[in-house]
């Protein structure tokens, strides 16, 4: 009875023309989302920025946030930039509370995020 997380991996170009990977999550981000978050991240190229698209996610709990932090940890090791967009104001606040914004910028939507990479 859990809404499984789905992740689509997209390749787009930032406004500078640079290739960017986008992980588009949908469903819930919870303890059962390990594959959808870390598994999907494991498959993207390490030489370009990664955008996390939360616009089709409506439930994120602290176990899900922990998976996002683990993803950021791995990215940090290889010096890869991570940004996120599509979070509701509530989850922007929650991500800020736990300190995620120290390591990943949050943008309101995909366009704004792409303009920065």
């Amino acid at each position, binding site marked *: *009875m*859990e*809404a499984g997380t789905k992740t689509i991996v997209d390749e787009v170009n930032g406004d500078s023309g640079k290739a960017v990977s986008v992980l588009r999550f949908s469903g819930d981000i*919870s*303890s*059962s989302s390990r594959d959808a978050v870390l598994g999907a991240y494991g498959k993207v190229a390490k030489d370009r920025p990664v955008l996390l698209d939360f616009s089709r996610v409506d*439930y994120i*709990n*602290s*176990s899900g*946030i*922990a*998976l996002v*932090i*683990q993803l*950021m*940890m791995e990215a*940090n090791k290889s010096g890869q930039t991570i940004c996120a967009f599509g979070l*509701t*104001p*509530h989850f922007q*606040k*929650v991500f800020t*509370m*736990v*300190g*995620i914004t*120290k*390591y990943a910028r949050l943008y309101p939507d995909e366009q704004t995020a792409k303009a920065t990479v």
Partner: protein
Amino acid sequence: MNEIKDTAVEVRLPSRLGFEKIAMGTAASVAKLMGFPEDRIQDLKTAVAEACINAIEHGNHMDESLSIGVILSATDDSLEVKVIDEGGGVSERPHSPDIDRKMHGEEEARGMGMFLIEALVDEAEWVKGSKGNNSYVRLVIRLNKEGC
């Protein structure tokens, strides 16, 4: 779990991850009925979800034959929520999450539930059951007060 007041609403859920979303839905309906603004309803939903997840995971150790209880009691200007499990309660209060330590692998990525609950509601209190069970966390969210 018999301390229900006349106008309290009680929900009983099996100890299965995912069912916290039902308690979120019920809590949101009560808060909406009381006239809480949307942003405070979101705060309440996350706090209730985290409390239920802890009750399911740490209180009842995912034993589906045990249930968790959620009692929602409204006054004119505040909503009290008790999330009750059949375990012994929180033994030691964890320190606040430290993102730098997490990013450097010096502390677990997890361990943010109690921190979020405290940050999102106006009062939070963890109470150990007297006979080693029926422990609960008691949350209060007030109508005329900005969140964090």
